């Protein structure tokens, strides 16, 4: 996908998202807000899974840490938007740094299990500090974020735009970062860590870095959630949330920029629309996931090129397979992931 097309695509996406409050109902707005929040979450996990090839089942930890940090800050100290957001980001980054320090030393199945273990420990911490976190009852009555002094971001539309702005910033930053020299190091580690090491890179350091960035952004997603929901509970730190994030990344398209966004949209829409028709949305999600794993392993993003190939639409001379999107991400992840 060439640069201009990509820029146009992103621009269209962002403009369309800007217009959303004028296009959908109140319910639709709430869904869209949720989609953007989980897009940020999935984008953050994608840095680990899709780009560096580290399959983590512990990402809910950062979502929870971010959500609880922002909420507790808002309740006990100050509900200033920048303060809560930055605190959530910093604390999540620190937690990610500590956890990443240990996780970077193991790989494959062990990495998967270790991320899970740490995430569950954080889940346990939420209960341990029940007086602070409200334990099973969760934290309710989280005040809305304030822009400046008393200027509250209160209405659903305002909240949507707040989350949209953060989403847009994250998307645009990742757009550059993941295709920058640094981002390409992540890709290299995914593809063949030994080779990258023999090029002179301290791969452990870069894995740690990927971990911290992913964790920090995961925490940002968590804080966004607290602004939106006004309520945080232990299920926002439970490992099934990590599983759902993984589903979003993989269904959408790991290792691509827009894949996680599509995956988040897909899953949120599925859960919210399906659950109004049937109680069995999990069945449909599970079946869909299996179908994707088997038939569309590269995710939703591969539907376009696939259709093009099937319909044999004449296009310009095949572009060289240069960008990360065109590669078989699975093969790369296999080497670092749950392959035995």
């Amino acid at each position, binding site marked *: 996908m060439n640069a201009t097309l990509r820029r146009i695509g992103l621009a269209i996406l962002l403009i369309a998202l800007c217009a959303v409050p004028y296009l959908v109902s109140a319910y639709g707005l709430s869904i869209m807000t949720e989609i953007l929040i989980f897009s940020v979450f999935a984008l953050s996990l994608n840095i680990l899974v899709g780009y560096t090839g580290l399959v983590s089942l512990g990402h809910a930890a950062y979502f929870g840490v971010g959500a609880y940090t922002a909420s507790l800050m808002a309740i006990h100290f100050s509900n200033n938007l920048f303060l809560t957001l930055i605190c959530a980001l910093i604390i999540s980054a620190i937690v990610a740094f500590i956890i990443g320090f240990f996780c970077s030393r193991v790989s494959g199945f062990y990495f998967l299990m270790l991320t899970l273990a740490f995430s569950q420990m954080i889940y346990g911490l939420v209960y341990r500090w029940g007086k602070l976190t409200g334990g099973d009852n969760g934290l309710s009555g989280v005040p809305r974020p304030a822009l400046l002094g008393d200027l509250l971001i209160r209405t659903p539309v305002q909240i949507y735009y707040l989350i949209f702005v953060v989403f847009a910033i994250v998307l645009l930053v990742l757009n550059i970062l993941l295709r920058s*020299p640094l*981002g390409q190091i992540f890709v290299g580690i995914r593809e*063949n860590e030994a080779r*990258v090491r*023999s090029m*002179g*890179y*301290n791969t452990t350091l870069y894995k740690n870095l990927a971990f911290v960035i992913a964790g920090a952004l995961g925490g940002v997603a968590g804080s966004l959630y607290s602004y939106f929901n006004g309520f945080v509970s232990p299920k926002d730190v439970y490992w099934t949330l990590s599983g759902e994030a993984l589903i979003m990344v993989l269904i959408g398209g790991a290792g691509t920029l827009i894949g996680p966004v599509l995956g988040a949209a897909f899953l949120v829409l599925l859960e919210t629309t399906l659950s109004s028709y049937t109680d069995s949305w999990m069945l449909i999600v599970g079946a869909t996931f299996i179908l994707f794993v088997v038939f569309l392993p590269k995710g939703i993003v591969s539907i376009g090129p696939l259709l093009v190939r099937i319909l044999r639409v004449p296009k310009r001379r095949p572009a060289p397979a240069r960008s990360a999107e065109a590669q078989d991400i699975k093969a790369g992840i296999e080497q670092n992931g749950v392959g035995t």
Partner: protein
Amino acid sequence: MNEVLRVEGLGKKFGGLEILRDVSFTVTQGERRAFIGPNGAGKTTLFNMIAGDLAPTAGKIRFFGEDITRVPNYKRVRKGMVRTFQKNNLLNELTVLDNLLLALQKFAGVENVWYRLRSPKNFSHLYKKADELLDTWGLAHRRDTVVKHLSYGEQRQVEILLGIATEPKVLLLDEPTAGMSASETQHILQLLQNMPRDLTLLIIEHDMDVVFGLADRVTLLHNGGIFLEGDPQTIQSDSRVYEIYFGKEEV
């Protein structure tokens, strides 16, 4: 002539099995040193230890006078010690260009840039260097091909190319012509012969044409130790060498 590499009493034991025992030698700057010997003699293990991919159980390694025995492998690369692999160890799903750029960006010092796209516009010097290297090695037409679609011989060339791109002072080539046809081998041999003389080459080889076409000195490893060391003619005329190879290669 200064010494770039000094190996002192290097040994490697895996449990009870001793792969290498008391290996010592020096290599001077600009030297082309070939390591030969039957399979299992410990050649690749030796390279692994020199490069830092494997820790020795005994002995020391000095690089330009500095003791690097405890230095991790990626740091040795930065000091100028670069190795290639016996089995192609490339980023198979990426293009030749992407492989090369990853190696080059480190030595251009731009590897940590996160705020600019890696594109010809932003990093023209990188792309120029890449094109130069590809031209020299005759791989320019494969620039945008995904590595897994290259022929084996071409992949082997990329393997060596990545080693060169990392700006080595000492380059360890582990069977660079393994599995190549005669003409491909000749091609590689010529390119290696044209390498600058301030670069030191250590090469594990089974192909004696390459050894004699390139090497200044030859070290013969056998049963985990150095059996013989000398210039190619001396090695060639020593009848014991033939016996060691047991008819594998006519020396």
